[in-house]
């Protein structure tokens, strides 16, 4: 590693389709090691679609997505996780048949080595230890989000993708959850958060991409972006 940070994730002219409907039109995103990058944008801008394409839930071309310099666009979701990219999906999507602890342990299914073990996740979110035997879906929204983050961390990712962490949560809970992101980064994990809440995103991110109608409409460091720029890029007015 020299002066410029090593690229963990890069997309090149990434496109995505739902049937005939094109959702992404040539997205170029670069994420350096140790960065926290936020992707903001209105509903339907293609933020979640972008994450789903990166983790292989939507098909893309081999060279459209690279992870640590290697093409992964052609790989399937389970192969991509095993290479060190984990997704905290929108709506948490915990497994209802599994207890909190089983949900967490399943995150480690791919047996990647790294700092994240169940004890470490319990340290980060003590409530998950107290409620280990509860079905995952019996937790409160905030606890479910913690469990979903913990589950993703259990795969020891080099890159953690978070989709709408704040969705449907009370502000105090959102602050709690965002407070752990620096701890995760300190363990050497790179983070991409997708967020509708602009202020939250600008607070936490080293760099920001704004999506609009499937294209990157603005990018830069939060300090370099004026409110007007962001508003224009966000709403397109």
């Amino acid at each position, binding site marked *: 590693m020299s002066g410029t940070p090593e690229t963990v994730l890069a997309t090149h002219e990434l496109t995505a389709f739902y049937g005939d409907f094109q959702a992404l039109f040539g997205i170029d995103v670069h994420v350096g090691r140790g960065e926290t990058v936020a992707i903001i944008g209105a509903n339907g801008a293609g933020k979640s679609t972008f994450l789903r394409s990166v*983790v*292989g*839930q939507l098909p893309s071309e081999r060279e459209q997505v690279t992870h640590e310099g290697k093409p992964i666009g052609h790989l*399937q*979701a*389970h*192969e991509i*996780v*095993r290479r060190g990219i*984990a*997704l905290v*999906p929108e709506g948490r*999507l915990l*497994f*209802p*048949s*599994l207890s909190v602890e*089983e949900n967490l*342990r*399943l*995150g480690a*299914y*791919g047996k990647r080595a790294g700092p994240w073990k169940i004890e470490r996740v319990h340290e980060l979110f003590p409530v998950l230890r107290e409620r280990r035997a509860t079905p995952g879906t019996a937790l409160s929204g905030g606890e479910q989000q913690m469990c979903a983050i913990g*589950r993703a961390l259990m*795969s020891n990712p080099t890159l953690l993708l978070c989709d709408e962490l704040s969705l449907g949560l009370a502000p105090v809970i959102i602050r709690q959850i965002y407070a752990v992101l620096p701890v995760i980064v300190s363990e050497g994990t790179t983070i991409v958060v997708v967020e509708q809440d602009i202020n939250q995103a600008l607070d936490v991110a080293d760099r920001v991409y704004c999506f609009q109608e499937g294209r990157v409409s603005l990018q830069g460091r939060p300090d370099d972006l004026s409110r007007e720029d962001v508003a224009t890029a966000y709403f397109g007015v």
Partner: protein
Amino acid sequence: MEWLDAIIQGVLLGGLYALFATGLSLIFGVMRLVNIAHGDLIVLAAFLGLAMVNGTGVHPLISLVVIVPVMAAIGYALQRGILNLTLGRDILPPLLVTFGLSIIIQNVLLEVFSADTQRLKAGALETASIAIGEQIAIGWFPLIVFLSAVGVIAALQLVLFRTRLGTAFRATSDDHETAALMGIDNRHVFALAMALALAVVALAGTFMAIRTNFSPAIGPARLLYAFEAVIIGGLGSLWGTLAGGVILGVAQAIGAKFHPGGQILAGHVAFLIVLVLRPNGLFPRTRDR
């Protein structure tokens, strides 16, 4: 005393029905696949056992050492090569493909083994029994079948709730897209579930072949018993499946007491009564989502 005997024999017969049904219940639970060829796969296992016993002269129970892994391998290949391709949001393709498979298996068996009825001979084990009192005798073989069913279901429960693979089965059953995000290869997990199901089918087919006459055409009737046991017990519950098998077995045994031809009918009537009173079965675990 005669009635008590009928009930005991029915319970033991229920063990065989539970073995018929366990594989069906497992694969429905894991991948929502209704396998119409399940009964024919039971018959296929019986014929494989027959070929091996005739070819080598080993005891049918010894032949299981080979038949169980062979059927498991067939299950893995079948799921990986064909059935995985049929799974999706639409439940019709797997139904049609397994229906076709059922016809193919029946016709291949007919071609290779002819339509003659066959029987696996288990020697003294077929008639050995324990006498309880003057009028009741429990056959060793039905007892072995019943205990095997209990053992198989206990073992599957351990796999489902105490192992990494079992957790993967349950997660995949909940939501296979999110399961893939955990690093689970659904195609492989589904194939392992089918392998496990057909390992149980191998046991069921061999026991059936020792207990009764069989021919290439009897698969669909075994499928029906298996379905009835699963539905009576409640979808997704393996112990429920055992209970379903036992209820079916007892109903048949009691029906046979009333009338020699009443056996099969009584089983179906018991099934209908449960279906009317408890449409979700007695011990449902699976909720429709």
